[in-house]
C-alpha cells in the first residue's frame, strides 16, 4: 500500500468481544476506565461504525450515550460527547480526557457517582480481520473513480483504522500521497480537514469522493 507508487485497497471485518468488565455507577465506570485495555476505549469511540446499530445515533461515543440514557446525567453526557478522539495524539491521552471529565463530575455532584444506571455499561473490545479488496490504484487521479466503489468497511480500514495503525496518525490516502512527493500536499491538508467523528462511513465515502473529484478535475473545492 503506502510506500509504493501504487495503492492496494484492503477491506476488513470487525467482531465485538465482551471484556467481562461492567459498570453500574459512574464510580464503577471511572474505576474500570483506569485499567481497561486501550482496545476497549478505541472500540467504544470507533467500533460503533462497523457493528450492527442504528446509524443516526444521538451520541458518537458509547460512554456519552450510557451516561445520558442509563445514568440519566445530561450534563456529563454532553461533556463526554464533545470529546474529539481525533484531537488526542494517542489512546492513553483519550483515556485521560475521559477520566478527567468523569472525575470533575464526581467532584461537582457526589450523588451522581452512586446513582445506579438502569442498564450496565458493558466494556467491549474488537478484533479486526483485514483482507485484500482486489482493487489497486495506479495513480492518485484514479481516487475519485475508485472511492465510490469501496465498501464502507474498506473506508473504515483506510480512513479510520489507519490513524491508529500508522505512526504518523494519518489516513492511508494521505500517507500514500505524501510518499509520492510534495505535489499533493494541499490535498493531504484537505483530507486532514474531514472530520470522521460525526459522520457515518457512507457519509465519509461521499465526502471523500467529492473532495477527490473537485481536486483532480475542478481545482480547489
Amino acid at each position: 500500500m503506502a510506500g509504493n507508487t501504487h495503492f492496494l485497497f484492503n477491506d476488513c471485518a470487525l467482531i465485538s468481544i465482551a471484556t467481562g468488565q461492567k459498570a453500574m455507577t459512574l464510580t464503577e465506570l471511572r474505576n474500570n476506565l483506569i485499567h481497561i485495555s486501550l482496545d476497549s476505549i478505541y472500540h467504544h469511540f470507533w467500533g460503533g461504525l462497523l457493528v450492527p446499530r442504528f446509524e443516526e445515533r444521538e451520541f458518537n461515543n458509547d460512554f456519552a450515550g450510557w451516561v445520558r440514557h442509563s445514568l440519566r446525567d445530561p450534563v456529563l453526557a454532553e461533556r463526554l460527547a464533545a470529546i474529539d478522539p481525533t484531537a488526542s495524539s494517542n489512546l492513553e491521552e483519550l483515556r485521560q480526557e475521559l477520566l478527567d471529565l468523569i472525575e470533575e463530575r464526581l467532584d461537582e455532584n457526589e450523588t451522581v457517582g452512586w446513582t445506579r444506571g438502569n442498564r450496565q455499561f458493558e466494556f467491549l473490545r474488537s478484533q479486526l480481520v483485514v483482507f485484500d479488496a482486489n482493487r489497486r490504484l495506479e495513480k492518485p487521479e484514479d481516487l475519485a473513480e475508485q472511492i465510490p466503489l469501496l465498501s464502507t468497511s474498506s473506508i473504515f480500514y483506510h480512513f479510520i483504522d489507519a490513524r491508529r495503525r500508522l505512526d504518523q496518525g494519518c489516513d492511508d490516502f494521505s500517507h500514500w500521497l505524501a510518499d509520492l512527493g510534495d505535489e499533493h500536499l494541499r490535498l493531504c491538508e484537505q483530507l486532514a480537514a474531514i472530520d470522521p467523528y460525526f459522520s457515518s462511513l457512507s457519509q465519509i465515502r461521499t465526502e471523500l469522493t467529492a473532495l477527490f473529484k473537485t481536486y483532480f478535475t475542478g481545482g480547489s473545492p
Partner: protein
Amino acid sequence: MTSLLETYAAITGNDVIDHLRQLAKPLANMKVVHVNSTRVGGGVAEILEKLVPLTNELGIDAKWEIISGEADFYECTKSMHNALQGNRENISPELLQSYEQTNIANAEKLRPVLEDADFVFIHDPQPAALINHCPNRHGKWIWRCHIDASHPYRPVWKYLQNIVSHYDASIFSLPAFAQPLQHPQYIIPPSIDPLSDKNIDLPPEEASQVYRDFALDPDRHLIVQVSRYDRFKDPVGVIRAYRLAKRFVPDLQLVLAGGSATDDPEGEIVVREVREAAGSDPDIHVLLLPPDAHRTINALQRAADIVLQKSTKEGFGLTVTEAMWKSKPVIGGDTGGIRLQVVNYHTGFLVHTPEGAALRIRYLLHQQQMRAQIGERAKNYVRENFLLTRHLREHLTLLVGLHYESRYRIKLS
C-alpha cells in the same frame, strides 16, 4: 444453476458476497459442525437451514447435526432455558441425570464427526454437555447461547458454567447477555434469511388469502404478534393492550400466532391461559400454527398494520426483525435484543406495560404517514444490519480470529 450466494448478491450487493469469499479463503476445506436440538421450529433451526449451505458454498465443509431425547430431557432443557432467562427453576437430580444421559447417548452417535471437526458450534444448553464426551476432539469448540442470559438463576448457571468453561469461545447475541467466563465471548446478533418462506415477497393472491383463511376483515385495522406461546412473550399482556386500544379504535382486530416447537413442553399450558384471556371476543384470533407454516406467518405479518413483540424477556426477537423487513413498525418490550432493533420514533416503539403498548397502537394507527415512514426506515435498518450475510460474515471473522489467535488486527495474506 444460480448458486445460493449469487441469489443473495441480488439482495445485498456483490461486495457483501465478495467479503464472504475473502474471509472464507483461509478456512477452505476446514470442517465445521453445528449442533442443536431441533431441525424445525424456533429461530436456531431457521438460521442454520441457510447458514450451513451458504458456508459450504464458500468452500468450507459445514455440517448440521441434531441431538434427540425423551420428554424428561426436554423438560430439563426447558427449565434450563427459563432459568437462564432468570426464572427460579430448581431442576431435580433425576432431570439432570436425563440431561447427562441424553448427551452421552448422542455423543456415542456424533463422536466421530465432532472429534474430527476443526470447529464445532454447539447451540444453546441442550447439546452443551457433548463436549464432556468427546475427549479426543482436536478442533475449537464454540458455545452459541441464543438466550437472554443477562440475569440467570445462579444454581442452574453454575451447573452450565462448569460445562461451558471447557469451550474455547462462546457467542452471545448482546453484550448484556455475556457471563464471566475464562474464554473469549464474542457478540454476534442473529439474523433473518430474506429468501426464506417466512420473509420472501409473496404474490398478492397468496398474501390476501390469509384474510379468508382466518376470517379477518381486510378493511379493518389489524395488529399481530407472532411468537411461541411462552409467558416471557407476554401474550396475555398483548390482549390487555388490544382491549385498552379498542376502546378508541373499535374496528381493531388482533392475531396471536404461534405454535410450539418440539422442544417446548410448556406451550400448551400457556395457550390455555391465552384462550381464557381472549374469552369470546370474535376479533381476537388465537392461532396455533404448525412449525412449517412459514408462508402463513409471512402473510400475517404483511397483513398487519403494526406488529407487536411485547416480550418481558427476549433473546434477540427475530420476529421483530422479520416484521421490520416487511416495512412494519414494531411495538416491542424494552428488553434484550428488541432494544437493538426498535428505536423510538425511528423503527417503532419500546414499551414496558400493556398501557404503553395500547398508547403506541393508538398513536401509530392515527398517524398513517408516520407509520409508513417508520416502516421504511425499519426495512433499511434490517437490510444493513440483520440479514443472514452479516451473520455469516461475523461467524467467519470469529473462525479466523480463533484460528490465528491474534489480539486486535489479523491481516490475511
